[in-house]
């Protein structure tokens, strides 16, 4: 306090010194000093802003020149064109979800790092992503989200977990051929169209086995041996180089080993068998009669391909996760600084009075931290509205699904690239309008603080 008094006391001394000038003159000098900055700002901020606004009301010619007055057409396009509308929708998702999540995550990390040992190390690790450029982060996450489990960490984990509980199926590549002995599909399983009688051989042709590298267990198919019950063979009715007859076991065609096969009568499975290395199977217990043969789907359903991280539905959430990874540390650092500024005695007083840690957090820490929380939240709103780089990078590897991740800034960029400057300007103005409330809030906030 004494220092403050001193400062106040000193001020008049300076003010009453001999060099004092009239207020009008001071303003004039201030103007002169501000002029370079003012001209600079006008040239690189004000003029482009105004020109963008003007340009957004004009149609685009084929080489990008402004043609005729368009009224609000460029703006209505944002709400009618599917790609721009998708961008708008995604921006809404981003703004609603991301600032809240970043603030909450940052708060959790900040509170937890106060309580643990090695807090600094923890903070450094969490803050590290901020030190990496968005481009590099985008590329990293692109790799994590790659479809092939050999490349993508995400799917390596997903497929690993899935296959631990549901073992890999054996023949997803096989499908019926020839004279349609079997009907059905790989996902539902196959079933013979006609019935087979006990005593006559049941020939069940399939095809699609990788003949260049066939399963090691597979042996050439043979005619089923004669014997009691229903006997037959499931074989790959295709040989390397083609030329076989459909529905006939030709020389060189392989039996399909280890396939489960069911004999069905009256809708009920009466017997089950598994094919031998040469594809033969037998239901010795079956007595005379006609049976439908069924090949259960378990042997055919396509292998689990993991999660389509960058597919139609997950691409935006996936990118948001990458963004959280980057910004959670940033929020944590700001909030941790805010928490460090909270007077310890307030917290201790609360604890002395018997408040639980949760109560301390809710009744003391959180209210005292509100200004910082707001700063983080609003900063994130502004950041997220103009999100571009990480979306743009991750989009590159999403192929045909990239359009589902579109955001306004990316839309602006593509319109600009296509020399549709009017459309691009309209998107830019919309972005400015969207950012404006948050900016006003932020500026007011700063002003209040500096007072």
């Amino acid at each position, binding site marked *: 306090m004494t220092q403050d008094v001193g400062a106040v006391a000193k001020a008049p001394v300076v003010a009453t010194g001999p060099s004092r000038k009239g207020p009008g003159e001071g303003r004039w000098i201030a103007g002169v000093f501000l002029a370079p900055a003012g001209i600079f700002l006008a040239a690189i901020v004000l003029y482009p802003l105004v020109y963008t606004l003007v340009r957004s009301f004009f149609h685009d*010619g084929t080489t990008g020149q402004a043609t005729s007055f368009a009224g609000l057409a460029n703006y209505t396009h944002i709400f009618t064109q599917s*790609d721009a509308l998708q961008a708008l929708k995604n921006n809404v998702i981003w703004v609603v979800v991301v600032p809240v999540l970043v603030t909450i995550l940052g708060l959790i990390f900040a509170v937890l790092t106060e309580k643990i040992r090695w807090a600094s190390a923890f903070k450094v690790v969490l803050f590290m992503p901020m030190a990496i450029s968005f481009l590099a982060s985008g590329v990293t996450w692109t790799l994590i989200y790659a*479809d092939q489990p050999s490349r993508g960490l995400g799917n390596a984990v997903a497929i690993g977990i899935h296959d631990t509980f549901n073992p890999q199926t054996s023949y997803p*590549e096989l*499908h019926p051929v020839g004279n349609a002995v079997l009907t059905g599909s790989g996902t539902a399983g196959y079933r013979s169209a006609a019935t087979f009688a006990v005593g006559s051989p049941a020939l069940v042709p399939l*095809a699609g086995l990788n003949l*260049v590298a066939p399963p090691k267990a597979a042996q050439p198919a043979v005619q089923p041996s004669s014997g009691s019950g229903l006997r037959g063979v499931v074989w790959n009715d295709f040989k390397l180089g083609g030329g076989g007859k459909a529905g006939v076991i030709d020389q060189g065609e392989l039996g399909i080993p280890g396939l489960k096969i069911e004999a069905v009568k009256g809708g009920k499975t009466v017997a089950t068998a598994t094919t031998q290395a040469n594809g033969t199977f037998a239901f010795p217990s079956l007595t005379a009669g006609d049976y439908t043969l069924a090949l259960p789907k378990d042997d055919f359903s396509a292998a689990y391909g993991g999660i389509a991280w960058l*597919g139609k539905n997950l691409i935006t959430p996936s990118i948001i996760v990458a963004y959280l990874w980057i910004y959670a540390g940033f929020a944590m650092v700001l909030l941790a600084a805010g928490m460090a500024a909270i007077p310890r005695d307030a917290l201790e007083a609360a604890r002395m009075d018997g408040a639980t840690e949760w109560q301390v957090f809710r009744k003391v820490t959180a209210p005292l931290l509100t200004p910082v929380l707001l700063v983080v939240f609003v900063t994130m709103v502004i950041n997220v509205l103009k999100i571009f780089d990480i979306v743009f990078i991750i989009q590159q590897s999403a*192929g045909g699904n990239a359009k589902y991740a579109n955001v306004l800034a990316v839309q602006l960029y593509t319109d600009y690239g296509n020399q549709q400057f009017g459309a691009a300007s309209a998107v830019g103005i919309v972005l400015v309008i969207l950012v404006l409330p948050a900016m006003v809030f932020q500026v007011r906030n700063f002003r209040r603080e500096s007072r």
Partner: protein
Amino acid sequence: MSLKIRNLAVAAVTATSLVSLAACGSSSGSPGSTGTGQSLKGVSFTILGQWTGGEQDAFQAVINAFDSSTGAKGIYTPAAGGDEAGVLGTKVAGGTPPDIAVLSLPGAIQQYAASNKVQPASAAVQSAVTSNFATEWATLASAGGKLYGVPVDASDKSTVWYNAKAFTDAGITTPPATWDDLIKAGQTLSSSGVQVPISVGGGDGWTLTDWFENVYLRTAGVANYDKLTHHQIPWTDPSVATALTALKKIWGNSGLIGSPAAAVKVPFPASVDNVFKKNPTSAVVYEASFVATTITSDKNPAVVGTDAKVFPFPSVNGSAPVSEVAGDFALAFTNNKAAQPFLAYLASPAAAKILVSTSGSGFLSANKNLANSAYPDSTSAELAKQLVAVGNNFRFDMSDQAPAAFGGTPNKTEWADLQTFLTDGNVAAAQRQLEKDAQSVKWN
């Protein structure tokens, strides 16, 4: 090559580093490409293009040959970021165009001609183009009846590439000639153990536009093709429905192209790789003649002509043979003294010979007076022969002629619409969306 220009890149306003020597003399006195002595000694001219790597080397070799015979100095610069349309547009608008630009978009020739930004071809260039190229090529390089550009290289976009061994393993001896043959061959390949018989690179939308254009050219004919190219008929036209329905016979068959949801993620290079890699998962891939370059740039390249073979895009619904092509055109933006002689030289068989025979270029030329023996391998010689043999019976890539906002933007408009069609197979919805997108774009 169109796949290059489609790299979405920063439309960077590059510093005008190119020195434009406005040699204000009249070009009437130039002796033409035959280069009588050092007639252009000391004249330097700039060329903007999009070629890099092997293609740039081959083009540089052509420039060097011109330089040494005329004494001029050609300075070639590839456009920053591969976005030539953007860079050129900015340069022209800024009043510092390159002396010559090499463009893959005939539509741009019309645009620049309409705004008087390009120089009409001199008499020497005109006679070189008429004597060396089919008239359709000259038409593509003309606007309002005046010739402006010179065809440089060409690619055949009606080629289907296949893995010869996979065909042998499946016992397919004759390459499919019709759409139904192709479907049948696909099924046979599937039975022979090829997981995804026909590889569709749906991750890059432009491959899908090429599929569509080939089918449309065959089912709707050249007259309709020309109309749709300039959006004179709507995309809701029944002819489009016919083409999409034919296309769906393959695109909608997961036994042939695998899961469409997976196909729509496969980028073009991977779609080629799937057919020619060590343990191939596919046997057939459709794309233009430049697939050869993609194959040879692989880590363990298949041998083009032996492992990798090619058959013409099959006839659809009994259509007669017709080709889709793409290519690059050179045009002069200034009256630099060397510009017209260089264009005339580019149109000559001598320049074409250097262009195609430089190793690693992968270039083909539609120059009909170029000896076929100039090609380094038999497959490209064969492809070039076809290019010349079709005469005027070809059409230029439709999406390359459309405004970029419709036919040339990743994840947008035509590309995105065909990607959606690939995944959902809804013909009517695809037509509606294509028409809606076409209407939102400014056509010439």
